[in-house]
């Protein structure tokens, strides 16, 4: 999958909100790409935009191309796109409590895409659903098909969500903060599960999270987003060892380091930006310790530094000097 210059705006009564501002990235087969950012950084909106899952209006995908299997998803009509959704690309959402329909049993909800996309009859779909539940580690799968979402615990519900997303053997799995609403021990379970499934099924995964710790453990590559932009992009090892964007650095710094003995945490001043009008400057500039004149005037573009390491900043933190002179 290849995404270029994706822009999504929301038309609200207070004016146009630019949630995603020209994002480009690609996803290779079988890899795990993490998208990291705070709330409001546009990471979820980006992923929703790929498959036009946002309510239109108020949302509008202003520009961009999403090439998948040689076709632009954004140019497809809804019927074609439907086959991709659920069929080729599976989705897992943040809150397993509300993401499952409370009035249908989980069997129905798993079988729905199977019947829709794979043309299975009810019996086959049921058999497959049992397989899937077993795959995601729900004991007593065949009995639990008739249970309703509220009869599952949070972790189990997320497993059901995963089963639904995996139902049609998708090539890509997009996981939107799948563990944020879960407890640490349950989070650990889910992460283990995803790792296993990845080994078994070999699909590509986009993993959206705000937790740098989680991302560190599972990703191949990372995208760091801020204010609707990708500010840094690197392989996992590079990013943690050598963060180039001041935001990435600050973010890593705020985490209480083990045994550092520091009495105070290092924080980022201010609060995340309210996304509004089309940004004309670096969105991080108001909170940035390195911000200089240019940052307030011009929006930095993502540029390749070396290998697979891109950053969007006018300041070179390593040299402690502006990246370009002029």
């Amino acid at each position, binding site marked *: 999958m290849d995404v270029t210059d994706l822009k999504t705006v929301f038309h609200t009564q207070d004016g146009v909100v630019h949630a995603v501002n020209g994002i480009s990235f690609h996803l290779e087969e079988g890899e795990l790409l993490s998208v990291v950012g705070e709330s409001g950084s546009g990471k979820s909106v980006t992923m929703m935009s790929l498959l036009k899952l946002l309510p239109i209006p108020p949302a509008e995908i202003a520009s961009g191309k999403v090439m998948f299997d040689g076709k632009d998803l954004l140019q497809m009509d809804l019927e074609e796109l439907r086959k991709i959704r659920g069929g080729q690309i599976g989705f897992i959402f943040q809150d397993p409590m509300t993401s499952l329909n409370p009035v249908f049993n989980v069997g129905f909800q798993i079988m729905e895409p199977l019947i829709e996309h794979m043309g299975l009859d009810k019996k086959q779909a049921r058999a497959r659903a049992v397989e899937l539940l077993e795959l995601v580690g729900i004991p007593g799968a065949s009995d639990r098909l008739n249970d309703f979402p509220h009869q599952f615990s949070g972790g189990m519900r997320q497993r059901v969500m995963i089963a639904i997303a995996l139902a049609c053997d998708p090539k890509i799995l997009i996981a939107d903060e799948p563990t944020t609403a879960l407890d640490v021990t349950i989070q*650990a379970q889910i*992460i283990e599960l995803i790792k296993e499934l990845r080994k078994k099924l070999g699909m590509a995964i986009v993993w959206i999270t705000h937790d740098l*710790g989680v991302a*560190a453990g599972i990703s191949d590559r990372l995208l760091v987003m801020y204010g609707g932009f990708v500010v840094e992009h690197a392989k996992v090892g590079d990013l943690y060892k050598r963060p180039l964007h001041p935001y990435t650095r600050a*973010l890593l710094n*705020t985490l209480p380091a083990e045994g550092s003995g520091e009495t105070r945490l290092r*924080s980022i001043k201010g*609060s*995340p930006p309210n996304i509004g009008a089309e940004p004309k400057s670096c969105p991080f500039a108001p909170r940035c310790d390195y911000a200089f004149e240019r940052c307030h005037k011009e929006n930095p573009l993502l540029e390749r530094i070396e290998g697979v390491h891109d950053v969007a900043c006018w300041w070179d933190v390593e040299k402690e000097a502006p990246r370009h002179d002029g």
Partner: protein
Amino acid sequence: MTADAETLVRAKNLKVHFPIHAGIFRRQVGAVKAVDGLNFDIKRGETLGLVGESGCGKSTAGRAMLRLYELTDGQIDFEGVDIAGLSKNDLREMRPRMQMIFQDPQACLNPRMTVGDIIAEPLDEHTKMSSKEKRDKVKSLLESVGMNPDYVNRYPHEFSGGQRQRIGIARALALEPDFIVCDEPIAALDVSIQAQVVNLLQDIQDRMGLTYLFISHDLSMVRHIADRVAVMYLGRIVELAPKEELYSNPKHPYTKALLSAVPVPDPEVEKTREHIVLKGDVPSPANPPSGCRFSTRCPVAQKNCFVDDPEWRKIGDGGYVACHYAE
């Protein structure tokens, strides 16, 4: 656990059960044992971290400490006074000395009140200040939590999550309490904001000599802020120890699992680290397992764990644990 002058708050056999009514006549058929026998004390000026997963009863315990829930059993000594047995009026007298900071900065501020009114509410209740005095006090409180004092006439929805949490803190500080229960004060905040709030809490503690009960599920934050840490599981404390002790040398298998589940923001470490993944879910507090409560999920459980309730025993240097096999 000897009583010394330093102890500010002490919980003894603290129990909060919520009755379950069922049947045609709504007879009580059981109880959700949200908090089932806690014993700990908090020394003046220290921060006790209380960690555990959702549903383990840590928030209930925190609220019970301020007697926002009626206790089923046990007592809470606040400077030697058992507040569990106080009358409503006496309790009201005590209120200014202990306050609370809440989890959800969205829900803990009344959306229809101005910031000034919100912060002044405790002053209305417990002081006889003139409105001018109140206003000045509110302004100074706002300043002390790092907010512009001109914001008094604004409404909560105009602020971001972090700012709202500051307002909540200002409200808790208004009566200059000795003891504050912080109920997951950073859980709903963005990573970059969490640090700001934690720093603020620490600053205030230093400045005013406060005592905190810091409830959180975020082990790394607790590690940063707390002096001692108590780990809760299913209505009980399974381990309590000074933080270095607890983090470097956890005794209880649950504490060990919990610590290993926390991801480390370092891919190198993550690659090599061995995670203890617990099986299954937390049992229902309405019907906790017999014996050790953790026995159903414990990787090292033996036969007697399913039968005998482990005793709350002292271990190591100032630590306590409730496990048959911890050493």
